[in-house]
């Protein structure tokens, strides 16, 4: 099992509030959070900008509750796509640690599952799912290592949204059988965050098993993070980093298969 992560903290320009959300996340025991920049290209004057440098947020990052290390903050881009032209991976995407897409139509959902170079596919939680989750795209996404995301904050805010969240989540878990699912907050305020064990329990309402619920905030998020890294580093094969390795270690590593070695390198970073 891996550390707990919340890969969706909604970005706000209110720096103080953003900071207090991240502090609360650390206090609740999340080891990694991602600040989410949502871009809806349907609306005017929306463009993908550079994310703010996370180092600007804090002088010293808050310490995770129950650990002796500080919280890790990532940047994430979410593209709301209602038209295939909206999703154009370019250099700007590279500045983000994670890339997510929120497909509005079935056609785009299919494309997101099968071809788009993304880490996360968002599932509608504020409206009734406009299409069914078909097994073949969902299985395709699972095979490609792309994860589906359900955010719980709208379910806290409003009773109708809560129904949509639960209904959409259940229809997704019926198709994906609890695999490749992450649960995130999407919080804008500290009081909208919930503790990791609470969310693991909430997973039962979404049709997940107890273990799957816990995986949805830990193991699966770790996989998303790794997937994001591999996307950044040319399929995870080529990755440059400074590291002095003693000769003995090199020799010993010889018996690790090539594919494994590549994986290890990304983990190190």
């Amino acid at each position, binding site marked *: 099992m891996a550390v707990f992560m919340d890969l969706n903290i909604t970005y706000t320009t209110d720096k103080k509030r953003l900071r207090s959300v991240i502090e609360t996340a650390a206090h609740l025991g999340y080891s990694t959070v991602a600040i989410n920049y949502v871009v809806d290209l349907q609306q005017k004057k929306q463009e993908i900008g550079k994310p703010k440098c996370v180092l600007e947020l804090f002088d010293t990052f808050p310490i995770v509750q129950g650990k002796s290390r500080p919280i890790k903050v990532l940047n994430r881009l979410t593209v709301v796509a209602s038209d295939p032209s909206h999703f154009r991976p370019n250099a700007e995407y590279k500045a983000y640690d994670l890339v997510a897409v929120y497909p509005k139509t079935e056609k785009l959902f299919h494309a997101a599952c099968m071809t788009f170079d993304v880490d996360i596919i968002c599932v509608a939680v504020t409206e009734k799912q406009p299409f069914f989750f078909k097994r073949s795209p969902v299985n395709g996404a699972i095979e490609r290592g792309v994860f589906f995301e359900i955010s719980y904050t709208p379910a806290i805010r409003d009773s109708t949204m809560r129904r949509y969240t639960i209904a959409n989540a259940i229809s997704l878990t019926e198709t994906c059988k609890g695999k490749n699912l992450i649960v995130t907050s999407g919080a804008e305020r500290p009081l909208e965050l919930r503790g990791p064990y609470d969310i693991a329990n909430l997973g039962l309402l979404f049709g997940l098993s*107890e273990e799957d619920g*816990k995986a949805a905030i830990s193991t699966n998020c770790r996989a998303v993070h790794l997937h994001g890294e591999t996307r950044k580093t040319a399929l995870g094969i080529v990755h440059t980093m400074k590291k002095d390795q003693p000769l003995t*270690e090199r020799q010993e590593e010889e018996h690790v298969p090539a594919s494994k070695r590549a994986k290890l390198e990304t983990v190190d970073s």
Partner: protein
Amino acid sequence: MYPELAKCPRSLLVCEKSNFEHEKSRHDTHVSKHYFNHKVSVVIPECGALSSRLATVINNFSKYFLVKNLPVYEFLDKDFLKNVVWNGALYALSYKTSIDQDNTIALLPSSQLILSVDKDTYEQLGLEGKPSQYNHRQPMRYVVTIDLTDKSMDPEGKRYQRVLSCLKERVPLKSDFLLGRHNSGANGDRALQSLLSRYQWKEHRPVVSSHTLKDLPCPSLHALDLRGDQRSCDPHSFLEWLGAVSAGVSCDNTAASFLSTYICPEPQTLVSQALHCTVSGLLLPEDIYSLLQELRRYFDEPKFTSWLSLTVHGFMDSPVSWGDAEHGFHKGGENFYNLVLFKNQDYWLHMGTGSHDRCPP
């Protein structure tokens, strides 16, 4: 209505009754095999203050150390191995590491080094281990057990060198540690001090607190009735009552009250006062055993109460519970035992664990 929502995590409770003077009584092994204890609490009905002898035992609990950023390979230091580890009295547990999230490391007094590590660390480490029992779909956690007393782990041997290089060069595993040591030999002290001197550390004493409870409804227990058929209450109710006492939950409710319907289990008596004493920190089984022996002597003089209780909580994030049985954390990592001591040296032993744990021995 919702079968999927009515389930809850598994829990286990093992209850035993026996007599301390029984030849085959295993109370000593149960106490000494529960390595990492975090809190001890004693409840003595009809008692106002700790007797001086009990107070001495409790205040003499061994002190322990918190060491910052201690690399694991330091445990394999030749001098340290010889003088401290092999003497079989060192308890080390990584501090502020969660068994369901982080790499957790423990050194048992049996000289077994247990590394409960995540998949990434395991793959890089290159030491042989086995997947954790509490893995889900794919193994994400592995447990590496290294027996430091094994012949192959002789400091001259090849395997020793390999383990050392893995822990030193491949993955320099380090963590904050809680260290506790029981018997102090001069050589051991020197070796331990030389290790500590290289890192940031601080000595801690177990924290003792005790208070007296007045007019407490108290279940009456009868040594022969463990099940609670007639003359005692059943084990779960008894433990619940003990929990209520520790947490300061009031028992005076009626069945109709809105807030709580909790009442003290039947049969009950009202005791005028009861002593509740707790010790917390890294508590060594040896100290707990001497506390147990002292508590047995409590009944040497005539007392009003017919029983007293001793509860020992284990560390929730320890990689082992009893002996080398793997321990995990699902929704809670409870592993504890409770001893009820009776006048005639009879005792009850309750051992409880949560969902990610083997059945207690």
